[in-house]
């Protein structure tokens, strides 16, 4: 991954110098090496601060909206899974192709520092990956974990190492993650519960929410000029304080709202400070759409219309669909 960071810096400098772009979107180190954050780099010198390691989960796609508005040609580094979000934004006409230059950036899976800490690693000084081993250095000694123990949840649903959109690719593609199981396993587990258990599960989960809106702000499908939750005229009602409809149904509405446009990136669940398993709602919609209307992956390309704006004459009826899911 260090090698990739070097390639990124060199590519950023090259593109800026050749005037192919005016600025670069990448990641900058945070307070710790494991809390890298998205950042814009406007000149060659700044590009030296670009970092890349197993702690760059954020998708930079959404920042391209701003680039499009400013009409500034921008270099954006995209991990394979990030490219789906870019395509979705293109489909939603929120970004324009002429204002960005996409550089495919190899990824072997992002790690979840929370999981590492929960497994007992304290005061982490360094983390290195070797094949499927994660070696964590701390002042109290070295710890070793299997990669699948500490991968981000979203990386456990990795879509592979293909870039769905890229002007060029950086270096060689890395092996896709080997631990991908059934990405709907958790959804199926809930489906198997009784109605009372399902209700109890969601009541537990949703009661944790503090309405910080992080899930909405990170989502590449949530790209409206003004969110319905901020719009008095919208059918959900007004702001949280003014209207309890929104307060109670926020997650249901949020998930429904992006159904058919959600690329399944898992960012919403990752950024939730309360650990609400809200990604499951999105996954449920994806599962239903695939099952009722045929396989569909939002962001696979920038043109296929969403299943919610298309139809077949022999689609299942609502009751039938719910039963078919069984």
């Amino acid at each position, binding site marked *: 991954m260090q090698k990739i960071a070097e390639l990124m810096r060199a590519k950023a400098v090259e593109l800026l110098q050749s005037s192919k772009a005016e600025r670069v979107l990448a990641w900058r180190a945070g307070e710790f090496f494991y809390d890298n954050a998205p950042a814009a780099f406007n000149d060659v010198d700044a590009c030296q601060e670009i970092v890349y390691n197993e702690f760059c989960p954020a998708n930079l796609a959404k920042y391209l909206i701003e680039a499009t508005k400013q009409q500034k040609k921008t270099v954006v580094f995209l991990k394979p899974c990030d490219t789906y979000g870019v395509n979705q934004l293109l489909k939603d*006409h929120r970004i324009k192709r002429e204002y960005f230059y996409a550089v495919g950036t190899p990824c072997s899976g992002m790690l979840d520092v929370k999981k590492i800490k929960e497994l007992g690693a304290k005061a982490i000084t360094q983390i290195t990956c070797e094949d499927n081993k994660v070696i964590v250095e701390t002042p109290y000694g070295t710890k070793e974990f299997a990669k699948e123990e500490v991968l981000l949840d979203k990386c456990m649903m990795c879509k592979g190492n293909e870039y769905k959109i890229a002007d060029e690719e950086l270096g060689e593609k890395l092996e896709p993650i080997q631990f991908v199981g059934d990405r709907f396993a958790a959804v199926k587990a809930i489906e198997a519960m009784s109605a009372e258990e399902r209700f109890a599960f969601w009541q537990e989960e949703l009661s944790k929410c503090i309405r910080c809106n992080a899930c909405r702000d990170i989502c590449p499908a949530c790209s409206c000029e003004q969110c319905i939750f901020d719009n008095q005229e*919208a059918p959900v009602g007004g702001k949280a304080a003014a209207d309890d409809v929104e307060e109670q149904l926020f997650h249901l509405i949020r998930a429904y*709202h992006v159904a058919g446009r959600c690329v399944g990136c898992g960012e919403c669940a990752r950024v939730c400070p309360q650990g609400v398993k809200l990604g499951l709602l999105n996954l449920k919609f994806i599962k239903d759409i695939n099952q009722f209307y045929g396989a569909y992956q939002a962001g696979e390309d920038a043109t296929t219309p969403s299943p919610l*704006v298309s139809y077949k004459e022999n689609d299942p009826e609502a009751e039938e669909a719910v039963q078919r899911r069984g």
Partner: protein
Amino acid sequence: MQKIGVFVCWCGSNIAGTVDVAAVVEAVKKIPDVAYAVDYKYMCSEEGQKIIKDAVEEYGLDRIVVCSCSPRMHEATFRKCAESIGINPYMVEIANIREQCSWVLKDVKVATEKAIQLAKAAIAKVRFNNPLHPGQSQVVKRALVIGGGIAGIQTALDIADAGYKVDILEKEPTIGGKMAQIDKTFPTLDCSACILTPKMVDAACHENITIHTYSDLEAVSGYVGNFDVTIRKKARSVKADICSGCGICTEKCPARKTPSEFDEGLRNRGAIYIPFAQAIPKVPVIDREACLKFKTGKCGVCSIVCPNGAIDYTQEDELITEKYGAIVLATGFELIDLENYGNLGYGRSKNVITSMQLERLTNAAGPTEGHLVCPASGKEPKSVVIVSCVGSRDTSGRGKTYCSKVCCMYNAKHAMYIREKYPNVDVTVFYIDVRTPGKGFDEFQRRAVEEYGVHYVRGQVGKIMSDKEGNLTVFASDLNSGRHLMLNPDLVVLACAVKPAKDARKLASMLTASIDTNDFYVEAHPKLRPVESPTAGIFLSGMCQGPKDIPETVSQAGAAAAKVIGLLAKDKLMTNPCTAKCNEQICSGCLTCTNVCPYGAISGVEKEVVTLNGTREKRVVAVVNEALCQGCGACTVACPSASMDLQGFTNKQILAEVDALC
């Protein structure tokens, strides 16, 4: 502050009999902003409307709620009333306390409570009503009539005579329809062809009428006044402009195994054929599925014998597009299949025939030149049994639930002219009821009994058996005597139920015309708008709307024509102002809405817009073409940012109703 007036109608006792209207008035008076409320016997009457007008003046009302019958009945009335006193017609809401309340409830207390709630919901909605102004659209002065039977021909002639262009679309190779197949008509017993063919010729010669035979409707878009229609003219394989209609090709064609549709399968026709002598156009058509040239590549006899070189095996379907202001459905009927009535022996014995086959058998131009014979033996029958209600009035799922209406009369007609021409033939009609309402109809049926000695037996036929020699045994009941009968007629005629044409449902989908469970087109109002479809600009003529006889069909055809003429006479139409509207300030320009719009009314336009923080920026936003938008609202739900709203049914209005009812 808003000033809402609430007007509660008694509708005589229709509402007031079940709803305590005074209590409704008292209840709504307590609602804030309700400046005036009153009840009256007939709000829709002149006096009732005067009450509304006076109240508007006296109390300065700016919004009106009328608690009355369905808005489908009188919304237009009350909107006009509001407009006449200077209130925008779209500031009126109707609470439907008749169809949805007094007519479906019996308990006064319960009904009154529901009426109050419905009134409250309408008041909640009307608070958010905004004045709306209809736009205008042009009217294309041309009509399309789908179906070239008597209904379609008459409609087209009436429209054409009024000076408007009209096209007839007919799927068969000739116009004429079912009436051309019929021998005689009731209640006059005059020759069907003699009265139909002059009309066919009139239509063909009329300068305002264009006939497209052997053609299908391919696609329809647009709306009242502006329909865009694509017609598929199927390849006839004969050049119509060169063909002289001499018919040599049809005589020489060696492929003669196809049963003639026109003669109901009682004789065969060639692969190249003209359905009947007076066909219009009198141009043959090649049935490519039967033609040896098309099947094997060998033959080509018709091409050799044609004196004009009119045969063209390479002809292809042609698509033509045309604009129309109005479309008339006159797709007619067919007889039901008898597969569910195996007990009656149809298909097993040739001597069991349908009444339409009998028409062909007695027709001088038919396969027997009008001699009534048993198809199996070729001999004249000595006795005939006519069975009514075959597949009609049947709720068991085998047939049709409705009465086919025309059978009782044509049974009498058939019985009578068999007896007229062959006085020695015994005719027995089995019936459940004899239904002959209509001018001269009962007299006609009675003549069959009184003058012609036809036996009418009240009872039905259970089964018809046929032995090796083809002799028929009919098992029936005679209810009046309580006897079980066994008869041995030579010929049995089944008066089969009628049903709408096969493609009625497909056409309904294409034209968005409403259709009922039996596939008859639904009229806009069963009593007051019988020839209009609920979809503006689509009209109904003839059997496609419900079973009816020729006089009724012709009257309805004229009525449909009058409605079309009324429409085409207008230069401009007021468009429905309840269209979608985009809030450009928050529209993100994702254009998801364009995917679901059935009219292509939304497009992305790059515009300078004022953003939420007051700056100006140029971006793509969705723009609705109000002339094209029909106001379905699909876009409003597809829109992720709720920037698309539907005027007249805004999010706020609907949610206000929801809140008022919950």
